[in-house]
């Protein structure tokens, strides 16, 4: 265990060649090294050996599914999960003395890394209007201040209730219930910023917002596409599933602007062959695509499939499926044939021959799955791109059969479950009617604010109170300067948090820190020890129960904080048993079972080992969209372009990072060590731009509003990024993403495909951005 750092770690960049494989011995070493820096060997052991096990704690890291009970490894986690869970289980503590020592403006100048390294929050704190310091406050007073502020609003719509994907089903259900009983649908969530585009596209075309595959599908697919995702760093346990698929003869096509280590080769640290051998080759074919070229790639593939059918009628397309289960095929096919090969090349950077080879892979495969992540969903044309994946899958009937389907890979452990529980600003009347029947109040019907619109409303003074259930909204949101201005415009900001982050330091006139239990900790309430539930990316609902003693006796659970706040705010206005909810989470689940479709007998079914899987209508031949059939769509051709002298930037996470929080300044798979203020650019682009390794540049984004958005003092690193593109770390470069730059239809911020130019840094003594 090491003490929290007093000063910022020094940044000094060194660059080594990118790794050609992921995991292996280094993954074990780095995981243990970080864990033992943070906490004791005993706690590390308890955490890791119960993590992702039946009856244990669900990894808060990503939403990847667990193998069936009985098939799990003794160590069922990845390097990043181990780091994440022990980052929460740290023995470091933040006390009142810390806040006396550090003013809010001092903290606002600190890096994300330094703030996180200070340790766990231990007691409620308040920053009063005009004060520069947080000070201790009792729970009663803290919740009283918040309730008074909420009740003093001219309208309930002047409050926003944000949810991060760490929140459990129970906490999420209670939060949305409280918000709606209070009178607003302003329920933005982190989904707005990660897979909103997938949800809209899948709901429209297939009638479900969720992926259609299970682990067993992946294990038995003939061909898997990994599009716009980096499993080695962002969902490493997916690599085990891909390894098993490969063992069963599957082939994998990876499509990405960067040749990430995890797409190339995987050394499974659970196996001797992974520790000592060469590991498993992941991608049989790698398409080095330009950012945003995925739509054109799949449109081109679809055209090639149609032409293959023309050449050999009845042998390529699944006419039985198309005729019986879909609509819109003729219009789609007509449109698909119009795509221009020059445009495809410009959009993708790929040759026709490369794409034809992929077509051949498809024709040789009976069962195909497409996986994707935020390399797709954060583009302006993300919704059409996901629709085109669906077109591609439907052409050969790759939906609803074993080993086939659509697989949006979600990043935050319960991001899917929170949405299922009603955390959405546009919940349908069916759900609101069910709430009314169950709780006897009439929920508001007008749609509320999503994340982007919440920022706009705060900035314009239309929202005055911001409450966050977990997360680091200020750093997760785009257009950092605008977001920070918006937060500072609020009368009150409050965060239910386990650890310190920048959202506590960029705050309203009054600010509250409401410290809460982590996933790893025992949660004892009036009715005894509690567990919570989560839903993973493959719609499996299961329990999560921590085993460690809480970081402080003053911590309340998320559910307890929300129930107490609801009691104080609503003061008997609605007949909702908040005290029973707090004392026994099983009572919340009883209500969920009557409100949320698919959760009947919730308590009984979730108590079984491994929980239960929500059915996916697509796999039962049902398409619950407006037309009642799977929908072929005709999507406009898009060729992302950057003006002369500009590049298309994608923001991305490092390997040593979880969402907005870096654990170190290293990114060992990409060979970046000691600094995060780097921009990765193709060597040929650097030559054209007159830049060289080690040059310092400002990244300046170009947007229609003419405002200058600048990320200062980044070091140039030549890197095999796709020609015409650049990559830099999130959240440092969120400042470059204009708030109005959102995906069509889904309103998701576009953190990919941002047009930037690189200007030499004039004053290199200026501090790098926090």
């Amino acid at each position: 265990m090491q003490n929290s750092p007093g000063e910022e770690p020094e940044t000094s960049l060194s660059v080594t060649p990118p790794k050609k494989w992921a995991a292996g011995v280094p993954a074990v070493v780095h995981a243990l090294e970080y864990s033992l820096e943070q906490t004791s060997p005993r706690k590390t052991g308890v955490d890791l050996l119960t993590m992702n096990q039946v009856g244990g704690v669900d990894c808060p890291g990503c939403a990847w599914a667990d193998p069936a009970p009985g098939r799990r490894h003794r160590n069922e986690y990845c390097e990043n999960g181990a780091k994440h869970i022990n980052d929460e289980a740290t023995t470091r503590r933040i006390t009142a003395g810390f806040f006396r020592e550090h003013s809010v403006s001092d903290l606002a100048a600190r890096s994300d890394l330094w703030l996180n390294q200070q340790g766990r929050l231990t007691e409620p704190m308040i920053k009063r209007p005009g004060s520069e310091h947080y000070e201790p406050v009792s729970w009663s007073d803290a919740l009283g201040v918040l309730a008074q502020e909420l009740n003093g609003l001219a309208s309930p719509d002047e409050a926003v209730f944000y949810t991060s994907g760490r929140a459990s089903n129970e906490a999420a259900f209670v939060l949305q219930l409280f918000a709606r009983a209070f009178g607003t649908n302003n329920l933005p969530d982190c989904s707005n910023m990660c897979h909103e585009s997938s949800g809209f596209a899948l709901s429209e075309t297939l009638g479900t917002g969720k992926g259609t595959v299970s682990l067993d599908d992946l294990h038995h697919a003939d061909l898997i596409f990994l599009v716009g995702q980096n499993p080695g760093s962002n969902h490493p346990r997916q690599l085990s599933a891909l390894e098993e698929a490969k063992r069963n003869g599957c082939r994998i096509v990876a499509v990405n602007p960067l040749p990430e280590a995890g797409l190339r080769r995987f050394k499974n640290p659970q196996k001797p062959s992974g520790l000592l051998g060469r590991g498993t080759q992941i991608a049989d074919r790698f398409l080095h695509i330009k950012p945003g070229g995925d739509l054109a790639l799949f449109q081109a593939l679809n055209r090639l499939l149609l032409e293959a059918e023309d050449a050999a009628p009845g042998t390529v397309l699944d006419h039985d499926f198309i005729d019986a289960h879909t609509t819109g095929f003729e219009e789609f096919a007509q449109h698909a044939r119009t795509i221009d090969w020059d445009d495809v090349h410009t959009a993708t950077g790929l040759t026709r021959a490369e794409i034809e080879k992929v077509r051949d892979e498809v024709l040789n495969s009976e069962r195909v799955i497409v996986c994707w992540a935020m390399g797709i969903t954060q583009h302006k044309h993300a919704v059409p791109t996901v629709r085109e994946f669906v077109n591609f899958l439907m052409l050969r009937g790759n939906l609803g059969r074993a080993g086939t389907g659509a697989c949006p890979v979600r990043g935050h452990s319960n991001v899917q479950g929170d949405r299922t529980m009603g955390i959405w600003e546009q919940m349908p009347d069916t759900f609101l009617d069910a709430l009314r029947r169950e709780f006897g109040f009439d929920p508001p019907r007008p749609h509320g604010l999503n994340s982007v619109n919440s920022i706009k409303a705060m900035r314009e003074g239309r929202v005055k109170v911001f409450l966050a259930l977990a997360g680091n909204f200020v750093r997760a949101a785009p257009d950092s300067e605008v977001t920070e201005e918006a937060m500072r415009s609020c009368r009150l900001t409050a965060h239910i948090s386990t650890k310190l982050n920048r959202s506590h330091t960029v705050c309203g006139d009054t600010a509250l820190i409401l410290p809460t239990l982590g996933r790893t900790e025992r949660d004892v309430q009036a009715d005894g020890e509690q567990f919570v539930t989560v839903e993973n990316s493959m719609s499996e609902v299961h329990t999560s129960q921590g085993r460690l003693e809480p970081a402080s006796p003053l911590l309340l659970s998320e559910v307890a904080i929300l129930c107490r706040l609801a009691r104080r705010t609503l003061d008997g206005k609605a007949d909702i048993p908040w005290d029973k909810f707090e004392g026994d989470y099983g009572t919340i689940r009883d209500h969920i079972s009557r409100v949320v479709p698919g959760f009947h007998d919730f308590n009984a079914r979730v108590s079984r080992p491994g929980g239960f899987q929500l059915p996916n209508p697509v796999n039962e031949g049902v398409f619950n969209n407006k037309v009642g059939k799977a929908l072929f769509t005709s999507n406009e051709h898009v060729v992302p372009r950057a003006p002369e002298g500009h590049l298309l930037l994608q923001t991305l996470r490092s390997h040593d990072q979880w969402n907005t929080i870096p654990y170190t300044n290293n990114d060992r798979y990409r060979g970046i060590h000691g600094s995060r203020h780097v921009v990765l650019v193709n060597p040929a682009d650097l030559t054209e731009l007159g830049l060289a390794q080690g040059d310092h540049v400002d990244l300046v984004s170009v947007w229609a509003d003419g405002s200058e958005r600048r990320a200062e003092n980044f070091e140039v690193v030549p890197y095999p990024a796709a020609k015409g593109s650049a990559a830099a770390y999130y959240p440092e470069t969120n400042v470059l993403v204009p708030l109005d730059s959102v995906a069509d239809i889904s309103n998701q911020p576009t953190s990919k495909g941002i047009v930037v130019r690189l200007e030499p840094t004039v004053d290199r003594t200026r501090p790098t951005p926090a």
Partner: protein
Amino acid sequence: MAPENEAQQAVPNAPGKRTDGGVTRRRPLRERHVEETIEVAVPVRTAYNQWTQFKTFPRFSALVHAVEQIRPTMTAWTIGYGPLRRRFAVEILEQDPDAYLAWRGLEQNPSHQGEVEFRPTESGGTAITVRMLLTPQGAARILTRSSRATRLTARLVRGELVNFKRFIEGLGQEGGAWRGTIRNGRVQHDHPEPPRSRVAQWPVG
């Protein structure tokens, strides 16, 4: 206790190609390395409903230790003898209520496929016919090439049929039912909304 050769005593109605409205259903299995038939003294609906409650196989089977129903068209079976265990995934290709079911293993080695037919008998019972084809790959192909391996498979299938007969006749009625239809590995949706499909329909971000 039923005699071991009971499985061979069934007198089913003559099996033939199944037709439905004049349409002949595709059957994936053409070669019949193993075929066993048994008659059970329950109506065909009862026999079919119980058989397709796959999760209950361990209750009567000597070989099946667990069955996971991943979804209607996909199951994962854990079989074994003594301390040995093997798990494999199975895709259901065709399923007609009270009549027919065809499956194939999704593993490459060894691969297998099979079909089950349910036919009413004149006595009011059900004739159940199981046909299985094993196609081992690699070294397993050599080991199982002999007719002894085929006979062993046949004996195992026959034993399982006998176990099922005792089970369903002892219970008298089924413990559940799934009445859906599967064609080409895909559930056929012919009702307004099957109960299992009543799930959240809003977008998930």
